[in-house]
């Protein structure tokens, strides 16, 4: 069976190489062989088609108060997205974990004498959406409004009023603090957030990225309205802000809107750069005991940030290893071939002062040793051997071919602009990144992996009834019986 199958598959492959396309086709009869050689029939035409491109004209300028602004005009929908990105994430919490999140969440709870009900009612009467969110690097404020002047002007006026004079009312602080404490308790009910936190602690240690953005039962009660107001004055400043605008307004209107918002912010400079996070010096393993039916495992280290010359090679490498969904090595080996997991993936997250590379998987407790051993083994092999040419070709085809979707909506574009401004990326960054990806070679990926990723010096964190011990699977063909 296997010989014949291999032969027929080979025929199919040879036929398809003519189309410069390699997939291991199945076939079980001569009829199927003929069909297989022609399936999909649309291949040639799709390959020959010239992919469409959406040309984005990005305008960039600086406000008088020093905010960096990025703007894209789109006029198909009568709406405007505004996003302010501040270098004001939980990495700035210092010894008051949760301060950045609380400050961010309190912005629309009272301002300039308006109470939370007034603010909510006013935005909702205009059909506008005002929102805030807080992350490790960033604090975000966003407004989505109809672009028609009748709605846009009052919505922006209210947003401006909030940014100019947030009141940080004490009762709202107490209420949101209670919600955050509840949220910490709820995180203890499920394994996922706990293992993420243990991993983050192990990877970052005392670095500011090791701070838990949601705070702790010890830190949250110590946060005062004064601390919140001081955080706002220090980090929500015009000089520390990126303003991204996308929608149906003209450039002169966008300039006026950006000036108005920037002018409302406290005067101040960009926040100082964070210290670089250290690369783990040795292999460590930490475990949280928890009565779950699955063991969750995170494995990782630090790679390089966007401005490093090896970033693109590692970005593509991560995609091949675990970032590329069902085509990734991890998904193929751990789930598809062995059925050990529902989810397994890796990610590379370039931040302002770190670039964590993280593998995450969840598996039945009885499979935890095998899944951990297999994953570590796959990682070691990947670093030693690098990807194959076919793997790189598929990854590059996907990463360049899917680019059209990353700018397909106003909300996607405003997200891209916010990142570009925040991380000081050049205006042609998206195009340049595409070109660099297309040019990457298997050898470059292998060499970059060898330079930056030592599989013997990774941080491992797990949660479950028992700490897993790496064990290699016994059968190599991927077959696996019932448990």
């Amino acid at each position: 069976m296997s010989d014949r199958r291999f032969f027929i598959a080979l025929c199919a492959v040879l036929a398809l190489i003519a189309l410069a396309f390699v997939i291991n086709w199945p076939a079980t009869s001569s009829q199927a062989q003929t069909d297989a050689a022609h399936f999909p029939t649309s291949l040639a035409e799709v390959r020959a088609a010239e992919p469409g491109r959406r040309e984005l004209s990005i305008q960039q300028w600086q406000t008088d108060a020093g905010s960096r602004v990025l703007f894209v005009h789109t006029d198909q929908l009568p709406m405007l997205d505004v996003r302010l990105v501040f270098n004001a994430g939980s990495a700035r919490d210092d010894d008051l974990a949760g301060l950045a999140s609380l400050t961010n969440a309190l912005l629309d709870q009272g301002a300039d004498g308006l109470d939370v009900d007034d603010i909510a009612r006013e935005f909702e009467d205009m059909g506008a959406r005002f929102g805030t969110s807080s992350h490790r690097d960033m604090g975000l404020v966003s407004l989505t409004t109809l672009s028609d002047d009748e709605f846009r002007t009052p919505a922006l006026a209210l947003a401006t009023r909030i940014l100019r004079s947030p009141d940080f009312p004490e009762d709202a602080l107490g209420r949101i603090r209670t919600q955050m404490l509840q949220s910490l308790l709820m995180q203890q009910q499920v394994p996922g957030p706990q293992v993420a936190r243990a991993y983050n602690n192990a990877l970052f240690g005392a670095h500011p990225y090791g701070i838990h953005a949601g705070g702790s039962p010890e830190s949250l009660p110590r946060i005062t309205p004064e601390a919140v107001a001081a955080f706002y004055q220090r980090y929500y400043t015009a000089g520390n802000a990126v303003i991204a605008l996308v929608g149906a307004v003209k450039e002169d209107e966008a300039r006026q809107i950006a000036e108005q918002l920037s002018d409302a912010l406290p005067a101040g400079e960009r926040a100082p750069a964070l210290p670089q996070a250290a690369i783990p010096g040795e292999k460590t393993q930490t475990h949280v005991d928890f009565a779950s039916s699955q063991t969750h495992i995170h494995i990782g280290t630090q790679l390089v940030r966007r401005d490093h010359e090896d970033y693109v090679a590692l970005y593509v490498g991560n995609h091949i290893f675990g970032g590329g969904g069902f085509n990734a090595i991890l998904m193929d080996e751990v789930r598809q071939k062995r059925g050990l997991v529902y989810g397994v993936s890796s990610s590379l997250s370039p931040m302002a002062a770190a670039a964590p590379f993280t593998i995450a998987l969840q598996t039945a407790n009885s499979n935890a040793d095998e899944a951990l051993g297999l994953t570590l083994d796959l990682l070691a092999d990947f670093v030693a051997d690098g990807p194959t040419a076919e793997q790189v070709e598929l990854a590059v085809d996907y990463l360049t071919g899917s680019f059209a979707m990353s700018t397909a909506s106003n909300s996607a574009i405003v997200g891209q602009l916010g990142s570009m401004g925040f991380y000081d990326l050049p205006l042609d960054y998206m195009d340049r990144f595409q070109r660099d990806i297309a040019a990457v070679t298997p050898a470059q990926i292998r060499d970059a992996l060898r330079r930056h990723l030592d599989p013997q010096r990774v941080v491992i964190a797990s949660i479950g009834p028992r700490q897993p011990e790496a064990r290699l699977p016994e059968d190599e063909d991927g077959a696996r019986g019932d448990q």
Partner: protein
Amino acid sequence: MLMRTTRHTRPAPVMHSMIRLLTLRGLRLLALATTLCLPTSVWSADLVPPTHEFTLDNGLRVLVRQDHRAPVAVVMVWYKVGSIDEPPGMTGISHMLEHMLFKDTKHLSPGDYSSLVARFGGQSNAFTAYEYTGYYQQYEATRLPLALELEAERMAHLRIDDDEFFRELQVVLEERRQRTDDNPNALAWEKFTGILSPGQGYAHPIIGWRQEIQQYQPEMAEHWYERWYMPGNATLVVAGDVDVDEVRALTERFFGAIPARDVPARPEPRQADIAGERRLNLVMPVQVPTLYMGWNLPSLLTAEDTHEFYALSMLSGILDGGRSARFQRNLVRGPRLAAGVSANYRGLARGDGAFIVSGTPTPGTSLDQLEAAVEAEIRAIVETPPDVAELDRVRAQVLSSHVFGQDSLFGQAMELGYLSVLGIDWRLRAGMAEALAAVTPEDVSAVARRYLTRERRAVAFVEPHVAPDTAQETADE
């Protein structure tokens, strides 16, 4: 920058929010020009991109939305089969079958589908729900022929390999552990839905009972595929930078040859009588107690008078249509009885609808107190019709959300597909604004009075093994 795919993402709590999403979409996105204070200039009918529908000779229904903002296209195939159709012993088989559609077909081996999609820069995934099973791909728009050919292949030529089946069964068990078994709130939700729609297909989890998943046989999935996967039981949605004539030709080319087959009768789920009050007290490994309340009432499809659907939608908006709505104002703020609380009218459903409230009390508040506070909010609406300003605020959000919702091509395709599998004309949106505008404060009180009654409701209390702190202890009982 990089979007990752996570396939088969549909646990009970996610379904909950999914249905909420769709219900809100029903409420908020399906609206057009109206007589409200918002000027009609913003709401020209041109705002809805051109939409076409046609049916192939074999029964396949096709909906095409031409939206040329970006060179991308979304392709979805929706099958009218979901977990509500599953008999005992086969719970979750729709979801299991969905997993198998990524494995073998006549021309594809496991892995081929995903790598073909990736080769052309596409993203794909699938979703199983109570009432449907859906598959999607999205690409740069010139990849449309490939997307359609792949979906036609899956519609007509699935092959289930025994080894692959049993290996995937382990994956589904892992999925169930991850989504439900290790999440006490998801488990509690599963138990609550069991009493919310007793004796109906909605009463078992979409992913299925663990003991039944463990006993699946490949023949069950084959049978399910044979029974439900035919052109006449599916809707194809194509949205994006496409042209209807091009789509028509491609659809004929790839789907036209699939033979028509009889579509089995699909019973309409209906609750015969009012079920009576049901209560569930659950002690679970949670740190924070949770309250679930649900009322059985009509959906758009089962309401004798569809006006009630719109009034119930407004009721949901008045209670929880935003941060200024009553639940946030009176339960989360004000006396601070709830750390979080939500109301959601599940009014777009194949069977009867449900009105669902869930919440977590603040420390020091008992579930009894939170339940009483929710009841008091409902009673206030029953006794005193809400202000017109509250209704207008809900309507303003409905209208703006209609615009904002069109920013997502995927969301537009979801809406078309969902309405289609429910048998509702996608033009529902055209009449929605007018219908909502006609809802009076008294109408809202009337539906609350008629439907949010004791004998229509199910209530679940979820409490920790041990009270998390002494404040909780003293406040309880």
